[in-house]
């Protein structure tokens, strides 16, 4: 009895966890997360050490093979995943936070000065090719760490959230219940918090996922060009090394294909979750 009530109240949640796409995406995402957490613990090697002879294909002793110099690819991938996921998470959160604030304010005051100004700023950032901007910024930083990289990636990623949040705010603003609150002279901030934000949670969550994807791709792109953090290891760096040391030409496909595949699957999983949630929150899409 209680269970059925629970599900009836949280109808969306029910649909969320039974949606095939969401399940698929979550399973893959969690597996990769698990890989990044558990991986470093179960591997007998360090990511810098010369774990064996070079040029080894995937085997029992080296699950993803070794690099040209004999480093263990599996170890490099799992440690690199940590760094990449961290940047994506950090940058995505910062970008979403900025985007949320900008989007709300802009949407709420739509048509007036703050909106025009913020939208101009947003459009500016959206139009600029982000990688080019990132390249210029990172190339000239004296030191690049995970935090710095997250910050500059976030700086170019927030416009997407801002725009999406703004348009959603706009559409919600004209809904009845918001007008009611206004008539009842509730303070602006409360209107934003209770009426608009509460209804946007699902939407914002989906945008956050997309943001996460985008920031991971941007930061891996930077790392690939050699503009990533100067210390430590990351997925983009593993791929860069593979390219620099001629992995493909020398037949070491495992060094290039596997890390990239894991990265792609990570992004695919997030897209699946996103699409699934889209179906959940927009019943019209539930048909297929």
């Amino acid at each position, binding site marked *: 009895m209680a269970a059925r009530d629970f599900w009836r109240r949280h109808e969306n949640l029910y649909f969320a966890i039974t949606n095939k796409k969401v399940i698929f995406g979550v399973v893959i995402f969690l597996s990769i997360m698990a890989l990044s957490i558990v991986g470093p613990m179960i591997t007998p090697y360090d990511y810098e050490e010369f774990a064996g002879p070079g040029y080894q294909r995937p085997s029992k002793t080296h699950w993803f093979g070794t690099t040209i110099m004999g480093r263990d690819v599996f170890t490099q991938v799992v440690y690199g995943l940590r760094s990449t996921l961290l940047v994506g998470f950090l940058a995505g959160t910062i970008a979403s936070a900025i985007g949320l604030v900008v989007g709300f304010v802009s949407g709420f005051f739509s048509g007036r000065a703050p909106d025009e100004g913020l939208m101009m700023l947003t459009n500016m950032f959206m139009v600029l090719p982000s990688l080019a901007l990132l390249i210029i910024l990172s190339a000239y930083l004296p030191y690049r760490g995970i935090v710095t990289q997250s910050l500059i990636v976030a700086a170019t990623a927030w416009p997407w959230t801002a725009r999406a949040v703004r348009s959603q705010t706009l559409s919600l603003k004209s809904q009845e219940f918001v007008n009611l609150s206004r008539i009842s002279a509730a303070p602006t901030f409360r209107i934003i918090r209770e009426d608009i934000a509460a209804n946007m949670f699902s939407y914002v969550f989906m945008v956050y996922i997309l943001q996460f994807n985008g920031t991971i791709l941007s930061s891996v792109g930077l790392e690939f060009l050699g503009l990533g953090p*100067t210390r430590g290891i990351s997925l983009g760096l593993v791929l860069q*090394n593979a*390219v*620099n*040391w001629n992995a493909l030409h*020398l037949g070491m496909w495992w060094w290039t294909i596997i890390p990239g595949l894991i990265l792609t699957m990570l992004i695919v999983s997030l897209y699946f979750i996103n699409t699934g949630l889209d179906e959940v929150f927009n019943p019209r899409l539930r048909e297929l």
Partner: protein
Amino acid sequence: MKARWIVLAVVVSLVLGSTAVLAAERNQTLIVGGGTWSQATSWNPLYPNCANGIRGLVYETLFAYSPLTNEHKPWLAESGGWISDKLYEVKLRRNIYFSDGQPLTAADVVFTYELARDNELTYTPLWRNLREVKAVDNYTVQFIFDSPNYQEWQIELYTRDILPKHIWENVPGEDLMVITNDDPVGSGPYKKLLAGPDRNVWVRDDNWWGNAVFGQPKPVEIVDMIIYENNVALGMLMQRTLDLSNYFIPGVPAIKDLYGLTTWYDGPPYMISANVAMLVLNSQRKPLDDAKFRRALAFAVNPEIIVERVFERMVPVSDSTGLFGGWTEYRDAQVAEEYGFWYDPDLAKQMLADAGYVDKNGDGWIDMPDGSPIDFEIIVPSGWTDWMESIRIIAEAFRAIGINANPAFPDAGLYDERIQTGDFDMCINNYGTGISGSPFSYWNWVANHNINRTHVTEGNYGRYDNQELFDLIYKFNQLPPLSDESLAVASEIQKILLVEMPAIPFWLNGMWAQSTSQYWTNWPTADNPVGYPCSWANNWQFGTVEMLINLQPAQ
């Protein structure tokens, strides 16, 4: 209706166009890469960043130099030598002419040198010691010195491009370095054909004077490709769209038999050595200002690991003195024996302890005698993958004996800025240690005296200050090659460098050369030294032209 005519017109023009110029045949074209890193924008030999190939292919020098045999081969000159202490005389060959048909005579040589006397050019400093250059007759040139720099002169002889007076005398002084010299006229075996964003193309001058003297170079065209990534070069080698690659390519030892690549040696070290890779120590920072500390560092690293893992044995470990090639004629075996270094981490630790460097606070790292912590950052340019791996290994070796050292990879621009301004602890560098006709260039780089400025650009980035050493190097320059006195001074220099260790020579970087034989054969190798397979800039006169003469088209 109209559209059909347009299509027809396009097709017809395409077909007609195909019968047009298709450049030289593939088996008459030599495709090289590895020596050119940016689009050519100047063919002016007076401008240091001029196109690769200007010196050697288009313009020529009095002598060619062979790093393999340490010989100066008479090229434009027929002979040359010191007639007296202060007089060097060159006898030119007859029947040399420029590509426009004008003869090359003593007047051109005199003109080339006087140009630097009368204008600010890169070789103007020569005139500090040179008093006069005169043409005794049409084919004899005399260089009269106040006090000759004998050692530097050894290098000068194969470095100076001889310019045609009849063309350059019309160039105003302030334009000398600026003009692009789009149609270079030189005496060399090739002429400029074209230069694109990703290649330079040179075409053979069939009237080259050297055909009768040395033989005719076989490639009708040389295409010098600009490739930024070595994996791209490897791909081209494998697809046979590159004949000679002078790139550092990882994996060559593993695949050379599979893909039919030719290297100088069949086995390790595969490549000829080209320069010394050194760990430069910043002697202005404690404790690197202590010679004992610096010397101990040399014993901490096993360069064999670098040679094996990073370079797959394509390079050799360096001798303690750093001398190799022709420079070894000055090597003092006894000094090397007595003051040299080898891998012995326990000894290194002992040496440090004896000098007062032990772990005072129990954190596992060695500290200064007064207890303050020590930690170093070793830098190399980001993207130079072989060096990046090498300093990882070196830092690891230091950490193993208790020295807190970490690698860092600033961008190339930042790296250069930091080493020039002295804002570093340690770095790997080899900019001025290329093989040459005299070890003077090497020592003058390692211990350069121009260190009292904001940007140090002539070597000695660690700003090691030792006036006695500077004076010795200066003195060495003033001594005739291989004279007893020069050997004695050389010994002194080596001893000081080993005892003081301002920079540690770890391995010899290679003259990377891999070639394929689908279109050209008779590549120079250790068993068949018919040339020097190097397309790097300012190396063509090291024997690469000879290689071109001896190449055979494959049947």
